[in-house]
């Protein structure tokens, strides 16, 4: 048995009175792409945002249970800032900050005190290469990140996350606003990135989960219905509800 990278024990989450994640027990292994599928309001995104404490920003958010990252409780043993530099996030909509390509990628390291220009330049180049964007932008690093195309912007956001050398990257429906070619590029990047990082992918696109994730979890109404190797989920689901969702009977 591999030791878990992230381990959730009896995790519950509420927004006000809405119980969005229900008593979740779940282990995520190092260097896997862990796919999460499920209809709208199934708690996928809430779960994902619990893992880097982005839900803390919402005043109505409440949770109990434990989330362990390498054995450390992320809500007790570390600050939110330290956690977020280890657990990066790529949002659904590409959202570069209103600054240059270079500054976008250098933002994270700079906020953590990195001042050395040479090192920053190295980090920026490495991150952009890992996100498959370097060749397209290397001559215009000073250009505003917002002038890139949608697919390039999303890869810039991935590079920005990689610049912090995180352990885990959370993808929250990263291709929902992208065309098929850009989507293919992002997926290709994910498959290579899993060698270095652990990836959790929330997606509305069932086929995407089938293409890239090693294991897939099916969420419904805040509950984990089924979790298995992706081939099994897609070829021989044990639960009727999983089968119905995959076959497009609801959601």
């Amino acid at each position, binding site marked *: 048995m591999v030791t878990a990278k992230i381990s959730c024990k009896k995790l519950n989450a509420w927004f006000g009175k809405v119980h969005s994640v229900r008593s979740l027990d779940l282990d995520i292994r190092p260097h896997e792409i862990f796919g999460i599928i499920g209809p709208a309001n199934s708690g996928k995104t809430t779960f994902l945002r619990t893992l880097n404490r982005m839900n803390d920003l919402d005043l109505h958010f409440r949770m109990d249970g434990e989330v362990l990252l390498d054995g450390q409780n992320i809500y007790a043993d570390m600050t939110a*800032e330290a*956690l977020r530099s280890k657990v*990066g996030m790529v949002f659904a909509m590409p*959202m570069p*900050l*209103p600054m240059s390509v270079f500054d976008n990628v250098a*933002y*994270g390291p700079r*906020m953590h005190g990195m001042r050395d220009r040479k090192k920053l330049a190295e980090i920026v180049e490495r991150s952009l290469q890992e996100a498959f964007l370097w060749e397209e932008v290397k001559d215009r690093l000073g250009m505003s990140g*917002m002038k890139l195309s949608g697919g390039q912007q999303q890869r810039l956001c991935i590079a920005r996350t990689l610049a912090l050398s995180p352990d885990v990257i959370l993808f929250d429906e990263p291709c929902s606003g992208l065309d098929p070619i850009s989507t293919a590029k992002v997926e290709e990047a994910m498959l290579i990135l899993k060698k270095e990082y652990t990836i959790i992918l929330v997606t509305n696109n069932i086929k995407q989960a089938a293409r890239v994730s090693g294991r897939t979890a099916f969420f419904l109404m805040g509950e984990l219905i089924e979790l298995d190797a992706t081939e099994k989920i897609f070829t021989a689901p044990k639960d009727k509800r999983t089968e119905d969702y995959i076959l497009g009977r609801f959601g």
Partner: protein
Amino acid sequence: MSRRAHISQKIAFSLLFLSTVFVVIPVVAILVFIVKNGVGAISWEFLTSYPRAGMKQGGIFPAIVGTFYLVFGAIAVSLPIGVLAAIYLNEYAKDTLLTRTIKLAIVNLAGVPSVVYGLFGLGLFVVFLKFGTSIVAGSLTLAIMGLPVIITTSKEALSSVPKQFREVSLSLGATRWQTVRHVVLPNAISGILTGAILSIARAAGEAAPILFTVAAFYLPKLPRSVFDQAMALPYHLYIISTQIPNISKQTQYGTALVLVGLVFILNLVAIVIRSRFRKKKKW
């Protein structure tokens, strides 16, 4: 398009256009009137010499200098405090009954008549804190009067920065303050300066708040310290319009013209600064 829709479109358009004209006419009329009547009084001597012969001759130099002091004093106090308060209210304060009450109070403060600010300044700064009638007391009174406008416009500017920018910054491990400092403020600065512009204009033009707190009828020399009294343009204008019999109309309108011109120049400076920041804005 049907005939009726076409006609009502025409009517709506004419109404909107007429309303705009109606707004512009008085502004233009006032400016033309002041310039026409006052421009003859403007001379180097008028701008750089002291009043003579019971205000009827000479210039308005000390009043111009006094107004500069007061405006800069007021902005130097109210801009930082106002912006910091706006940051607190917009970025940090939780949505409780107390913060909602504070926000409501700030909005209402903007509607308090300026003479009330004058009396407040008299009570607090002149009498209680024993600053006397002085530039400090007048500047602080003007600063307090300007605060609601600065806070409200700054808050508006801060909240117009997309929420997603904050999320992105925080998701990269930045602290709240780093997020405010590096992402929110740089993108809100032009809106904040709009608030500053509005309150500069008001601080320069109001007579009531300085009436009891700083303004002198006549001073033979410039103020030497912030605890001295000073002359100021709006108050000077009020005096020569009401207290001095047989003064030439030209002097009155000349003073008004200088006041309007001064506000215009101060605004222009702020607008130039703002447009430089706007060029940096990239979305």
